[in-house]
Every structure is written in C-alpha cells, then in structure tokens.
C-alpha cells in the first residue's frame, strides 16, 4: 500500500522555512548542496524556487559513512561535485529524509574537507524523528513519525513523489 504525501505542499513549506531562516541570519548569497540522491533532486527544485543562480553542489557521502566497518563500501559511489569554493560560504545542506542524523554528520565532515564554510543551514523534506545524534534540521517540510513496519522514500527526479511503504508488501 502506498500513501502519497503532497510533495508540493512540503516543498512550499521548505521554501518558506528557508527564506525565513536566511532572512533571520542575514545570509545574502547562500549555496545549495544536495546529498545524493534525493537531496540533489530537492536542491535542483529549491534553487529555482529560491532564485539561486549559482549551480548547486552534489555530495556523495559513501566515503564518510560510519557503517563501512559493517557493510563495506557502497559499490555505486559517484564523485561529489561542489562547483564553488566552500571556504567562507553560507551553505544550505539538503537531504530528503532525516532520521538517525548519521548521514548529516558524514555530509558535514565531507563539506569541511573542502574548506571552512561560514555557516550551514540544514533543510530536509521530512523529519522522522528517531535521532541518534544531536543534529536537528533548521527547516523541515514535514515532521512525522513512522510505525516500525513503515518506510518512507522519495522517488524522482521527474516527477518527485513520496512513497510510504508498508514492510512486507
């Protein structure tokens, strides 16, 4: 069974939240970095919505994951691509779903290996709670909790849609 959440509504929420956060912090020329794969699709949409002309970055965190010692290397790793100098920049880091917070930790470690950014704002489409690390999104399209048998997944890139999967189906 697949229940669809309204993606446009969530994107509106993210756009509004980000505009507000940027204004509050007085950030004038942020750059977007999306985490593969869902975060990259979202960065593409949001850069247009926010009118950011500078091309967005794509981050593959495979080399920074903390579960290498359990599952080995992701065989489908692709090069990260940050088409700007991160040093001193205000970064909007985007992912589709936040749960444990481990992906974001890995992503921030990776970003710092490119240089020292001025700030990072974290925006996610969905916040599922269940955090294992002290990391919180500044902006979330929706906050919700899942039953233990449920999974949520962003499909894309065109059209973007959210799938709620019931385990065993």
């Amino acid at each position: 069974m697949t229940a669809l959440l309204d993606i446009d509504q969530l994107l509106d929420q993210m756009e509004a939240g980000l505009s507000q956060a940027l204004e509050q912090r007085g950030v004038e020329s942020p750059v977007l970095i999306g985490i593969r794969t869902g975060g990259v699709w979202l960065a593409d949409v949001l850069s247009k919505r926010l009118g950011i002309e500078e091309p967005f970055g794509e981050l593959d965190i495979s080399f920074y994951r903390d579960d290498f010692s359990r599952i080995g290397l992701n065989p489908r790793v692709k090069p990260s691509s940050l088409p700007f100098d991160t040093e001193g920049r205000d970064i909007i880091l985007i992912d589709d779903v936040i749960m444990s917070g481990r992906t974001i930790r890995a992503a921030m470690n990776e970003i710092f290996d490119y240089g020292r950014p001025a700030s990072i704002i974290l925006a996610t489409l969905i916040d599922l709670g269940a955090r294992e690390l002290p990391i919180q999104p500044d902006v979330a399209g929706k906050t919700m909790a899942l039953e233990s048998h449920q999974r949520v997944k962003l499909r894309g890139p065109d059209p973007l849609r959210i799938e709620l999967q019931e385990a065993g189906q």
Partner: protein
Amino acid sequence: MTANDSSPHHLQLTRDGQLRHFLTLDGLDRALLTDILDTADSFIEVGERTIKKVPLLRGRTVVNLFFESSTRTRSTFELAAKRLSADVLNLDISTSATSKGESLSDTLLNLEAMASDMFVVRHSQSGAPHFIAESVTPGVAIINAGDGRHAHPTQAMLDMLTIRQHKGQFEGLKVAIVGDVLHSRVARSQIRALNELGAEEVRVIAPGTLLPKDVESLGCTVEYDMNRGMQDLDVVIMLRLQKERMEGALLPSEREFYRLYGLNQQKLALAHPECIVMHPGPINRGVEIESAVADGPQSVILNQVTNGIAIRMAVMSMAMGGQVAERQQKLSERGQA
C-alpha cells in the same frame, strides 16, 4: 581433470561477488572492473580537494610488503592508504628477512603478530600474493602490487582508467602492447582487462623471443612488424625493456630493438591521429620510446600517476569493504545458528 577450486578468482571474491583480495584480473567480470574504475573516478575528485583524505580506513593498518623494491609503486600505495586515513607500515623485505634465508611462511607468521588489516605485496615470484592470501589469517586483505611475470592488476586498471578518460569507452578500440610481453606482468593484466572491458582488438608487437608460448590464448593477436602493427591504433602501450634481456640471447642489442620496436614520430604517424601513447614507466628514452613522443601531445604518461593513486584507493577500500562485510555476515550467521 582439475585438481581443486582454489583458482584465484574464487579466492579474491566473497560469496556475494565483492572483492576481498585483489590478486589478478582473472575471473573479475566487466561489471566489477567498471565498479573499480567508477570508484576511482570518485577518488580522483577527492584528490582535488583542500583536504585530500577520507576516513574510510581510519584505524586500520596497511603493510606495504615489498619483497622486490620499487620506490615508485610503493609510494603511490602509501599515499593511497594515507588518503584513506589508514596507518601505513613500509617493510622492505628484499633487504631483510628473506636475504637471511627466512621463508615466506615464517615472515608472514611474524607479520601477523602486528594485527594488520591489509598487505600490499610485491614479489619477484609469480603467485606469491596468491600464496599469501591462502596462508594469511582470514580478514586480512591482500593487494597484489606486482608478482613475477604474473600480474600487476592495479597498474593495468590505472591504464584502463587513463584510456577511459581519453576515449570514453572501450568498445571499438584497437590497442597495441609493444615490447617485452614475455617478462611483463603488466602486459598480462592489460590484455585481460582490455578483453573483459570490450576492446575490439588487442595486438602485441614484439619479436618471437619476447613473447610467451601460445600468447594468442591470452586474447590478443601477434604482429612482428611494428610498422604494420601501428595501423589504425587508438592506443599504443610501450613496455619497459630490462637491460638484462641482451644477456640470455633474447635480443641482439638495444640499438636493433629501438630500430625495430622503439616508438618514434614516424611510427606513431601510422596510427590513428588521435592515438594515445602510454608507458607504465619508468621510461628508457631511446630504447622503447623517443623523447619527442614521450613528451609529445599524444603522450598521456603523466596522467597515469594521478590515476594510480585513485585506482589504489579504490581497490584498497573495496577489498577492505569486502572483508568487513564478509566478517559481519559470518558473525550474523553464527548468531542465528
């Protein structure tokens, strides 16, 4: 009738087909070779960052076990391991243990006490890394950094990466390997990789004394005349010629070899105009290749160094990954049982 199933490709893959050692390209399919190249592409990007280091092998120990000294190859492995955040120990065995008559098995026993996670092995005897992979404690990954005349898989893969960067793909490519194929572990691995990745033709160009018996069975054609062999080539790979080849009556002189099989501008002009020139190094200028060609616009010899680090990072992280994944799998199976 075959005697056993311990052929190298069973040894170097996990049950799920992941790399756990990297001993030879034999038995590795196109998908896996492509994975290696793709992963290396990602590591090339890492090499362009301010901090050229990823935490994959943090806290792990890599031992460079060089029974045959080679500063160049050892350095790229060392740099690759360090960029993966591993601790690296360089052991130049050629000058220590084995010269005192210690057997390889005994050397290994001593090294195991160091609780290393990976051995990068170079040895003058074909099959030595394979032997080590069979004898060493489970969980330790073995990377072949060149064994006898058998294989030099990381060198061949970095050459494949270079070819892919310049040609985009392998389909339809005509590639020649020129020179001392008989003694070359690099050539054996290259022929295998080019065949598996789908090159149209692999040609070896050499005199009969420098070709192994039944060389065609490796997956190549043979051409004795270099002028003919250069026709339509997309890639020409020059092999290094060791000076001692004159001694065993394999060749009359360097001069005659250079005249017949050395690459100069005239011969290169016979190939496709966009033919690239490669050489695993170190180059003997005026023996295998003319300086004007080695330093010329078609030469990609220097690109090969950057690619060497990326390829080694790729196979080291993939083999270590295979080892840890396998260990986890065994633990969970034991837990269930």
